[in-house]
C-alpha cells in the first residue's frame, strides 16, 4: 500500500473525503493517491457515487469534508482564480460528450484555444485538424454535434478535452452507449494518449473489460459500506479479492445461486 503523503510523484491526493447531497452522505472517508502517468479507475455498482466522486475531483461539487490535492496543493481550499487556473490543466470527457450543441466541432475545440492561448486563427485551425485526426474524425470540422453519431460525439468530446494538452484526463463512463468495438477502440486510445503524452488518467466505469484492460490502479466504492473498500490493481484484486463485494463485482456474481 502506498501512503497518502504527497511526494514528488504523487499527482492527485484524496484525503478523508466525504461526499454528501444535503444531509445524505453518499460516501465517507475516501483516501487514495494517484501517481503521475497512472490510469486510475473508479469502479462500483450503479448509484454508488462514482460520478459524484468525479464531480468532486473536477471541482463541480464541494466536498462535505476532507480535501483533494493536486501536486500537493489543496484544490478545495484554493481561491476561485487558482481553481480556474488548475482547471486548465484538466480535460474532461463527459458521458454524452457534452459538446456545445450550437457550435460546430471545430468551434467546440477552438473555444478553449481562443480563451487560453494566443494562437492566430490559422494556427488554431491547424491544431483543430490535428486533434480531430487524433480521434479519427479528420474532416468533420464543420459538422454540428447533432449531425454525428453518439460514438463520434464522444470522440469529438475527447478531442476537445485534449485541446490544451491536459495533465489529467477525466472520463465519465467512456464505454456507456458504445458498441463493443468502439468501446475497446476508445480504451486503446486512452492508453495510447497516456503513453505518448504522459497524462494522468482518471476513469469512472463499471465496464469490467475496460477496467481490466486499462487500469493501473482501481478504487472500489462499496454502496453498502458507503466508503472505499478496495484499492489496488484490479487483476490483483481478482486473484485475491479483499472482500466479498469486490469479488462479486469483478466476477459478475449476482449472488442469487
Amino acid at each position, binding site marked *: 500500500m502506498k501512503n497518502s503523503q504527497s511526494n514528488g510523484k504523487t499527482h492527485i491526493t484524496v484525503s478523508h473525503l466525504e461526499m454528501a447531497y444535503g444531509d445524505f452522505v453518499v460516501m465517507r472517508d475516501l483516501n487514495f493517491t494517484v501517481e503521475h502517468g497512472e490510469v486510475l479507475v473508479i469502479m462500483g455498482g450503479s448509484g454508488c457515487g462514482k460520478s459524484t466522486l468525479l*464531480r468532486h475531483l473536477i*471541482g*463541480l461539487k464541494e466536498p462535505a469534508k476532507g480535501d483533494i490535492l493536486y501536486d500537493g496543493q489543496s484544490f478545495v481550499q484554493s481561491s476561485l482564480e487558482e481553481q480556474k487556473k488548475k*482547471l486548465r490543466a484538466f480535460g474532461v470527457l463527459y*458521458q*454524452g460528450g*457534452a459538446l456545445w450543441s450550437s457550435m460546430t466541432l471545430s468551434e467546440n475545440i477552438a473555444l478553449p484555444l481562443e480563451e487560453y492561448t494566443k494562437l492566430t486563427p490559422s494556427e488554431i485551425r491547424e491544431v483543430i485538424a490535428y486533434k480531430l485526426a487524433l480521434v479519427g474524425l479528420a474532416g468533420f470540422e464543420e459538422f454540428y454535434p447533432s449531425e454525428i453519431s453518439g460514438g463520434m460525439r464522444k470522440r469529438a468530446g475527447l478531442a476537445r478535452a485534449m485541446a490544451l494538452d491536459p495533465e489529467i484526463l477525466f472520463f465519465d463512463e467512456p464505454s456507456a452507449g458504445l458498441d463493443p468495438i468502439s468501446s475497446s477502440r476508445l480504451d486503446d486510445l486512452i492508453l495510447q494518449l497516456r503513453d505518448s503524452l504522459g497524462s494522468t488518467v482518471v476513469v469512472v466505469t463499471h465496464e469490467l473489460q475496460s477496467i481490466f484492460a486499462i487500469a493501473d490502479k482501481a478504487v472500489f466504492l462499496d454502496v453498502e459500506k458507503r466508503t472505499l473498500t478496495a484499492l489496488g490493481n484490479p487483476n490483483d484484486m481478482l486473484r485475491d479479492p479483499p472482500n466479498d463485494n469486490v469479488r462479486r463485482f469483478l466476477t459478475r456474481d449476482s449472488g442469487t445461486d
Partner: protein
Amino acid sequence: MDSQAQKTIFKVERKGDKLLLHLSGVWKLGCGIPDIDAIESSTDGKATVKGITFETSKISGWDSGLMTFLIKVLNYCQANGLDFDQASLPDNLDRLLKLSQAVPEKEGLGGHEGRGNLFHRAGIASIHHFGEFKASVSFVGECFLSALGLLRGRRPFRWRDFFLVMQEVGVDALPIVSLISFLVGLIISFLGAVVLLRFGAEVYVSYLIGYGMLREMGALMTGIIMAGRTGAAFAAQIGSMKVSEEIDALRTMGISPIDFIVLPRMLALFLMMPLLAIYADIVGIFSGMLISKSLLDIAYPIFLNGMLEAVALPDFFLGVIKGVVFGVIVAISGCLKGMRCGNSADSVGLAATSAVVTGITCIIIANAVIDWIAAVYGI
C-alpha cells in the same frame, strides 16, 4: 364469446385446518382483481385455520392480474401468521412469486417532501423557497459582477453570440410585436370612441392613444410578448444545455457560464427591448390613427397635433426606461430558470414554464412600481 369463460372465479373451501382456494377461469388484468374478503371472512375468528393452499389446474389464462391477487393473499397470510402453501402453485407462478419476494421492501425510504403534517410540510416548503430566493439573489449578483467585469474590459465577451441573440430577440420578434401592438392601438381607439363619444370629446382620442401607448401599453405588451417568446426560449436552451452537461463542460474549462451564456443574452435584450418598445409605440399610434379616422372621422393632422399637445418627451422616455427594465427582467428570469433547471427532460419544460410565469409577474410588478415612482415625481 362465452361470458363464463371470460370470468375470474375463485371459491374458498375449508379442508381440515387449511383453506383450499379453487382458482379457475381467466385471471387477467382486464377482468379485474377479486377482493380477498371471502378469505378474510373464512379465517376471521377461526383460530383453527392454519394455512392456505391452492388448486389452480382449471385456470385457462393468466397474467399479472393473478400475480397481484396471489401477492395480496401472501401479504394477508404473513400479516395473520397463516401458512402460505407456495408449493401447491404451478412452477412458473412459484418462480415469479419468489422473484417478487427476493428483495425485501426497503424501509425508511420516506424521504420525499410532502409527507408529514401541515407544519412539517410548511417548514420544508419555506426552506425550499428560501433556498431558491438566495440562489436568485446570488445569480442576479453574479450577472451584475459579470457585466461590471465586461465594462472594465476584464472579461472576454462572445460578440458573435451577442449579435446572434440580438437578431433572435430583435428582428425575429418584429412580426409578432407588430401584430400585437397594432391590435392594442385598435383596442384603445375603440375604447376611446365608445367612452369619449358620450361626452362629445372624441377629439381627445389622440390624447388617450398617445398617452396609453407611450407610457404603458407599448413597453408592457412588448415585455409580455418577450417573456413568453424569449424568456421561455432562454430557459429551455440553457436548461437542455444543463441536462446534456454542456454547462458543466464550460465550468471545467474554467469558463464562467454567466459570462459565456447569460451576459450576451442579457445585453442583447437590454438593447433590443427599448427599441422594440419604441417600435410598438409607433405601430400602436399608427393603428389608433387609422381607427380614429374611420370611426370618428378625425383627420390625421388633427390627430397628430392633438397628440403632440398632450404628450411630451418624458412620456416617451418613461416607456423606453420601462422597456430596458423589462428586458433585464425577461433575460434574468429566463437565464436563472435555465441555470436552476434539474437534470431531467421534464425539468426543462418546468424551467420554461416557470421562466414565463416569473417574467410576466415581475414585469407587472415592476410596471406598477415605475408608475408609482413616476406619479410621485410628477412625470
